C-alpha cells in the first residue's frame, strides 16, 4: 500500500520513523567526531564515510516522515530541544576510544541488518523500498565493523581489554534497542512495522555468539528496564548544542 488507512496509524508510523531517523542522525554525528582524529588515515576515511552514509539514511527517514506529517527535516534536526529527540541512549554516549566506537557501530549495524530486512516486508511500500535501499549500503558498514570486532577482540591483551571495557559500558543500554513505543503493537498486527521483541531476541543471540568468538563476554548486569525514548543521558545536550549552533545563529539563512 502506498498510503496509510487513518490518522492514528499515520501518527504511529511517523513516531517510529522519527526514532529511526534520530538514531541514524545522532550516531552519524558521534562518528563524524573522528574525522581528522581516527587512529589511521584509512579509518579516518572509512568512518567519515560511515558517518555520511548514516546521515543519508537519516534523511531518507526524515523525508518519509515529512511526506506523512509535513514536518520539515531541517526544522526537526536544528530546532528541536534535546528532550524532543527520540534516539537511543546508546548512540548519544560520547565517542570514547576506538574500541568503544567500533563496538557501538558493530552493535548498531548488526541490529540494523535484521531490522532493515524485516522492514523490507512492510506492507507500507515507501518503508519497504527505503529499507531495501538502505540495506544494500549497510552491508559495507557491517563487514567493516565485524572485521574490527574480530581484530581487536582477538588482537592483543590491551585491545581485548579495551573492547571488554567498551562492552561493559554499552551492554546496559542494549535492551532499549527493541523497546517499542506505545501502541506500536497495532503496526505489527497490520504488518506495517516488524515485531521488535522478536528481532531483539534474534539480534541478542547473534551478537552473543559473535562477541564470544571475539573473546568478549557481555556483563551480567544491566538496566532494570529499558528507558523510554524521551529519556536521555547528560551527553545528549552538549551534542545537540554543537550540532545546532550554526543553524540557530541565523535562523532564516538558506544553505
Amino acid at each position, binding site marked *: 500500500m502506498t498510503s496509510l488507512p487513518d490518522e492514528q496509524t499515520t501518527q504511529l508510523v511517523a513516531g517510529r520513523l522519527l526514532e529511526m531517523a534520530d538514531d541514524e542522525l545522532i550516531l552519524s554525528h558521534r562518528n563524524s567526531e573522528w574525522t581528522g582524529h581516527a587512529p589511521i588515515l584509512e579509518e579516518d*576515511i572509512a568512518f567519515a*564515510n*560511515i558517518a555520511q552514509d548514516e*546521515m543519508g539514511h537519516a534523511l531518507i527517514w526524515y523525508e518519509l516522515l515529512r511526506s506523512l506529517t509535513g514536518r520539515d527535516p531541517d526544522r526537526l534536526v536544528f530546532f528541536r530541544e534535546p528532550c524532543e529527540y527520540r534516539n537511543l541512549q546508546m548512540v548519544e554516549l560520547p565517542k570514547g576510544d576506538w574500541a568503544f566506537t567500533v563496538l557501538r557501530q558493530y552493535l548498531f549495524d548488526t541490529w540494523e541488518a535484521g531490522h532493515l530486512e524485516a522492514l523490507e516486508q512492510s506492507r507500507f511500500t515507501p518503508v519497504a*523500498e527505503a529499507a*531495501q535501499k538502505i540495506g*544494500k*549500503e549497510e552491508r559495507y558498514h557491517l563487514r567493516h565493523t565485524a572485521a574490527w570486532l574480530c581484530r581487536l577482540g582477538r588482537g592483543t591483551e590491551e585491545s581485548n581489554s579495551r573492547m571488554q571495557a567498551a562492552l561493559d559500558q554499552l551492554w546496559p543500554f542494549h535492551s532499549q534497542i527493541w523497546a517499542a513505543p506505545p501502541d506500536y503493537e497495532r503496526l505489527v498486527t497490520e504488518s506495517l512495522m516488524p515485531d521488535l521483541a522478536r528481532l531483539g531476541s534474534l539480534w541478542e543471540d547473534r551478537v552473543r555468539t559473535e562477541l564470544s568468538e571475539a573473546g568478549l563476554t557481555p556483563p551480567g548486569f544491566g538496566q532494570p528496564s529499558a528507558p523510554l525514548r524521551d529519556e536521555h543521558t547528560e551527553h545528549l545536550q552538549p551534542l545537540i548544542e554543537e550540532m545546532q549552533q550554526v543553524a540557530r545563529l541565523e535562523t532564516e539563512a538558506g544553505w
Partner: protein
Amino acid sequence: MSEITENEVWEALGSITDPEIPVISIVELGVVRTVRVDAERTVVEITPTFSACPAYQAMAGSVERKLREMGATGVEVRTVLHPPWSTDWLSDEAREKLRRFGLAVPDRHQGNLEGAIEAGQAACPYCGSSNTRQTNPFGCTPCRAMGFCQDCRQPFEQLKPL
C-alpha cells in the same frame, strides 16, 4: 501547453554530468529513471547512487534548471528509491569512459552483491590487470573504494559494487 517531447527531455538530460564524475551523463549513470511529459506537466524521476551522495542535490538542481531552460511546463523533479541504484546498470560504453577517467568499475554482480563485496576487486583502470587488491572499502565519496594494482604498482579508485 508543452510542445516538448519525452525524447527531447532525455536528450537534454544527457548533457548533464555528475559533478564528481564529469565523464558520463546522469542518464548513463542511471540516475534518471523516468521522464513523463503531458499537456500540463513534465515529471522526471531521479534516484541517488548512494543515499548520501553529496552531488545528488546538485544533480537534481541541474535537472530542474535544464527543464526550465527548455521551456517545459509544470516541472517536477521527484526522488525515487526503488529499484535501488546498482553498478550493474552501467553500460559497457559507460564503463569504458569511467576506466579512461581512471575510475575502475567492478564486474556486474547480477544480484550477488554480497559475493561482489566479498571479492572487493576490480580490474586496474591503467593496465587492465586483474591482479589487484582492495586497500580500503571506503573512498573519497560514498560510491568509491580504493584499490592497488600489483602489476603496474598503481593505486586507483573504483566504484563500490552496489
